[in-house]
């Protein structure tokens, strides 16, 4: 049985500032905790408990702080190899030392835009509290519907982390357009049964967040894709319905980007699509006419179906990018395939090549640029890529990030986290602030050390360029907005993040 990581941790008495195993975002079968991850978890608990005691802090408060995170990175060093993370001996005890390390003492040094953040309308968690399973589990559980829903999303993204702006990222949901009598449906009426995040809802919550903040804190994507409205008699795209929805999402919802899942089929057409097929090209051209030229595309993480699974391979990025040089394609998860549910043997199962650092399907995405150096409109995004690799094996994170930057350039790598699957993104933010590629890998693979300037681009400046965000204006506006005032009050009153990851892991015992 699979349970949410936070529930597993509570049952096991674990409170760790970084997830101690990879959690599933429902795009792959969760993998078992590895022996090394078990060791890291044990060290975090032992050292964190002892450090908290030395500082006369509760373990809960310690683990929710950057001091706890420093302890966690030191634990990874002890297990995966000394020097992977640059953590001074004083950092588990001195907040000033941590702040100096992460930002050089300059708070707000990085303007962070998370282009892959998710919440749900609590649809996928169902009637959990009343389920037979919940009754039989024997330990106290949070209401996970609440944990993953909008209010908690706002708390974990904005109060519990340094994220300045979010892009509410889409899922493969197709809206219903009309009632049986032809009336145009509105808002909740447009949500198909079981759908978790339709475009209207993302737009509504984007607006709600921005109105509450009194500034622009949120952007949103639209889910419409070329196979969402389909004429089943002719087995062709329903262009009229697609245009109607496109105009609604652009003009009414005012979406900021499309979010495509080529391997999904919400209209039950029996197939998916490819970025370089005729329907996708028609969609791109129609969208271009309406001024929308940003396409965020899920690649990598796929499913077992022979018919659909291969459509998440990024091989189709090449022709789409070449044919549409004025359109930008942000490739989510940096196309990490992650096909195996194997824990210990993950590298081999994903065709990791120690000579090149390549692995499935990330290599395909890298090859697109290697073969076509002129391509300038493809952007690897790193949600559930950087954080997954950091937790799985920090050396793999060095290869993944090293290759992204070496191949596409630091000005084309885009920050995302896939939170709330991973809980509050603060741990991933501090991980990337500390992150560096080893001298050995730089020498052997030609990677460059990641500079502060690179990190600033990846954390937010690249996304700002793609989404037309004026970072200088935002830097002035956000410190005075209502959300920042709420955050300061929250922190002054002792508000703490809870280290809950909401993704799935196997239940022990």
């Amino acid at each position, binding site marked *: 049985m699979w349970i949410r990581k936070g529930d597993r941790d509570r049952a096991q008495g674990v409170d760790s500032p970084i997830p101690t195993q990879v959690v599933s975002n429902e795009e792959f079968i969760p993998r078992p905790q590895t022996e090394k991850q078990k060791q890291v978890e044990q060290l975090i608990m032992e050292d964190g408990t002892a450090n908290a005691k030395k500082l006369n802090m509760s373990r809960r408060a310690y683990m929710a702080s950057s001091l706890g995170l420093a302890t966690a990175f030191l634990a990874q060093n002890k297990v995966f190899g000394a020097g992977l993370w640059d953590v001074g001996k004083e950092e588990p005890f001195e907040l000033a030392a941590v702040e100096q390390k992460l930002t050089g003492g300059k708070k707000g040094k990085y303007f962070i835009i998370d282009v892959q953040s998710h919440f749900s309308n609590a649809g996928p968690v169902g009637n959990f509290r009343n389920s037979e399973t919940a009754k039989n589990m024997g330990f106290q559980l949070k209401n996970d519907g609440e944990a993953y829903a909008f209010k908690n999303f706002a708390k974990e993204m904005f109060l519990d982390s340094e994220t300045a702006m979010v892009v509410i990222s889409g899922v493969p949901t197709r809206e219903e357009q009309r009632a049986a009598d032809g009336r145009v449906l509105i808002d909740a009426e447009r949500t198909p049964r079981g759908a978790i995040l339709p475009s209207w809802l993302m737009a509504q919550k984007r607006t709600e967040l921005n109105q509450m903040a009194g500034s622009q804190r949120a952007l949103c994507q639209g889910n419409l894709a070329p196979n969402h409205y389909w004429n089943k008699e002719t087995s062709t795209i329903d262009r009229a319905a697609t245009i109607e929805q496109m105009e609604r999402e652009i003009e009414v919802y005012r979406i900021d980007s499309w979010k495509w899942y080529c391997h999904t089929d*919400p209209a039950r057409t029996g197939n998916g699509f490819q970025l370089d097929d005729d329907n996708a090209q028609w969609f791109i051209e129609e969208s271009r006419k309406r001024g929308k030229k940003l396409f965020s595309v899920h690649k990598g993480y796929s499913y077992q179906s022979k018919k659909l699974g291969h459509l998440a391979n990024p091989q189709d990025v090449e022709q789409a990018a070449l044919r549409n040089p004025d359109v930008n394609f942000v490739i989510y998860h940096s196309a990490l395939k992650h096909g195996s549910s194997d824990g210990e043997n993950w590298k081999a199962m994903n065709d990791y090549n120690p000579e090149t650092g390549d692995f499935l399907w990330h290599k395909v995405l890298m090859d697109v640029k290697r073969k076509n150096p002129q391509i300038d409109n493809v952007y690897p995004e790193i949600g559930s890529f950087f954080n997954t690799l950091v937790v799985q094996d920090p050396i793999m994170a060095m290869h993944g990030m090293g290759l992204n930057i070496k191949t596409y350039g630091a000005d084309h790598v885009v920050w995302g986290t896939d939170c709330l699957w991973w809980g509050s993104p603060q741990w991933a933010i501090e991980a990337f602030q500390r992150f560096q590629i080893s001298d050995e890998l730089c020498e052997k693979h030609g990677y460059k050390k990641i500079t502060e300037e690179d990190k600033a681009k990846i954390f937010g400046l690249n996304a700002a360029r793609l989404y037309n965000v004026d970072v200088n204006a935002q830097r002035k506006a956000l410190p005075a907005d209502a959300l920042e005032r709420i955050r300061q009050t929250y922190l002054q009153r002792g508000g703490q993040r809870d280290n809950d990851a909401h993704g799935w892991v196997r239940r022990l015992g």
Partner: protein
Amino acid sequence: MQEPAWDFEGQPPFEEMSETGINLCAYFDAMSDAQLQTYRPSLSDQELMAWDGNFTSEDTLLLPCCESEDVDVQMYRRFIEQCIRYRNSVRHRLSSAA
């Protein structure tokens, strides 16, 4: 023993097939015949979820990437029973070829 090349996913759909349905067929194609043959319709819902091992604490199957529709026990039973009928019809032929 080598598992025959099951293709439940490739069979004509026995009901209107959503992406979740297509993936659920593929899920059963990956299930070993030995495991499948231990399925009993008489399993209670709780026993069924334990038998499969990939249900979540929210009583739905963790079927990767199927974000628009949950696989509950009823849907699971409908598909596995159809899959058993499929395998019974092709087992001899595919096993000979394997």
